[in-house]
């Protein structure tokens, strides 16, 4: 079976975030980047499905030149080849615009399954997979913990709220948005890293995929959240701060 994994490169967790001069997005100048965490789990699931059922895993990633690093890492973990949609200002696209490009890149591949993370750690819209499925005419399901291949279809374990789960069956081809944490992530081996160097990365521009549509939803401004609650912060060394906190918990909040 052929599996496409749509991944995104995002700023590393705990990156210092500052609005850029334009005010429309963050200043990315001094940041380091990594694979979006839920997408790493989607990749892991794809690699495990390939190990069980054979076939091919193709990585699909839209992003600027630096995204090539994240793509290479995915190839080093075991993906067979990659498609890199080269686009500088990813954030200028909305979900629909991005999904259109991804869908256009997917169509000639005729995949059996498309996996992606349930949301990105930066924008966090959590929609790309669902919108891509709609554009491709594929069924989908989201917040998926497990995938089982059955004849011409799949049976997935979907997470519901408050500790509930549900199994859902659907035909292939299908799009699944994967939840984090359901598998243990593998590391790239030395051999994998070596092999990745000769694996194919097909670079494609938005123009070759039919061009970018103007965005329906636009981010006008990003800013640090305004504090709505007054938090009392205790300063000083750990012992002093802890003593002040206990004093407040005992005599002000009266909870201990």
């Amino acid at each position: 079976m052929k599996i496409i994994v749509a991944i995104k490169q995002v700023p590393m967790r705990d990156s210092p975030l500052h609005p850029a001069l334009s005010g429309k997005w963050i200043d990315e100048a001094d940041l380091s980047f990594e694979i979006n965490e839920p997408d790493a789990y989607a990749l892991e699931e794809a690699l495990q499905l390939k190990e069980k059922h054979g076939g091919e895993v193709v990585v699909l990633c839209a992003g600027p030149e630096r995204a090539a690093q994240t793509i290479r890492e995915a190839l080093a973990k075991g993906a067979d080849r990659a498609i890199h949609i080269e686009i500088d200002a990813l954030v200028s696209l909305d979900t629909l615009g991005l999904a259109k490009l991804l869908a256009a890149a997917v169509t000639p591949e005729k995949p059996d399954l498309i996996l992606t993370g349930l949301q990105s750690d930066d924008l966090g819209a959590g929609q790309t997979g669902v919108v891509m499925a709609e554009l491709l005419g594929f069924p989908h399901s989201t917040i998926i913990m497990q995938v089982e291949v059955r004849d011409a279809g799949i049976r997935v374990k979907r997470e519901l709220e408050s500790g509930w789960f549900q199994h859902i069956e659907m035909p292939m081809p299908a799009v699944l948005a994967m939840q984090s944490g359901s598998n243990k992530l593998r590391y790239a081996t030395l051999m994998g890293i070596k092999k990745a160097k000769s694996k194919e990365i097909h670079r494609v521009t938005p123009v070759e995929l039919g061009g970018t549509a103007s965005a329906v939803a636009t981010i006008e401004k990003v800013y640090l959240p305004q504090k709505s609650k007054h938090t009392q912060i205790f300063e000083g060394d750990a012992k002093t701060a802890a003593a002040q906190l206990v004093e407040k918990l005992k005599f002000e909040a009266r909870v201990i």
Partner: protein
Amino acid sequence: MSILVILEQQAGQWHRMSWETLAAGQQLAAALGEPVEAAVVGKAIGALANEAAAKKLAKVWAVEQDLLDSYTADGYTAALQQLIQKTQPKLVLFPHTYQVRDFAPKLATRFSQVLVSDAIAARLESGTLTLVRQFFQGKLSGNVRVGGAGPVFASLQAGAWRADALESGSAPVEVFAPVLDAEQIRQKPEAPFREAARAVDLTAAEIIVSVGRGVGEQSNLSVVEDLAQAFGAELAASRPICDAGWLPMERQVGSSGQTVAPKLYIAVGISGAIQHLVGMKGAKTVVAINKDSNAPIFEIADYGIVGDLFEVAPALAAEVRKAKGA
């Protein structure tokens, strides 16, 4: 600019976020001087529709069809597409639930629109709607403007609007029977289930000490366990800790775990992603210990210590023991 609010029910039970979304719909409708309608989707939902009709609304749509008995993305999308085509609202609001995340982006795409997901505020300035949402798991906020020809679709974050602001009234109920074909519903859902009975009931705990990613590795948990012991507290965790298997899933607080409301909640090394916050917002007093002063957990904390948890937690445990001994 009429507003349509999509309420959520499962097996005849309301999702509590439905009422928050309805309150938001009422407030926006009042600001615009336009009517607000609500829709409930399912099979045999007359009683639920009547309950919703006791709110201040122009109309309640009972979107009823046998094929809508269990939720499916295909079924709900097709049904609501037909309702929206009929009623032509300018704004469609949803509670940002797991179910809404599954179908609302698909529904918006049918109208060449983009869902603004997980919005925390809506501002109206001279008739133009700006939605506020969070980026980087709450570390940044941003204003989003939606253009396009179709309705604006937005899902609203848990707790961002208050259900107790909901106004009562009396609205007519109208049944809307969408035309659905079993063939077009490709997802075949089975009955929901739970993994195992919960041995730990965090909802009964008076004090909870909760640990997150900041603890770094499993062997460091003892520092937080000792703090919990000093407080006489239950130990809980954010999702990554339970995913890693460092603590059992039944100790997870958040949207996929338990929702708690203790009198004291101490968040140690938890940055405060919304998925965690929705599970503990109801705590009476919140204490946050985190090395990042910009961590969203400080947004909702009453007291905070910015610092290294491996220094602060032992110092705090010692002070608590001292205070209790005295």
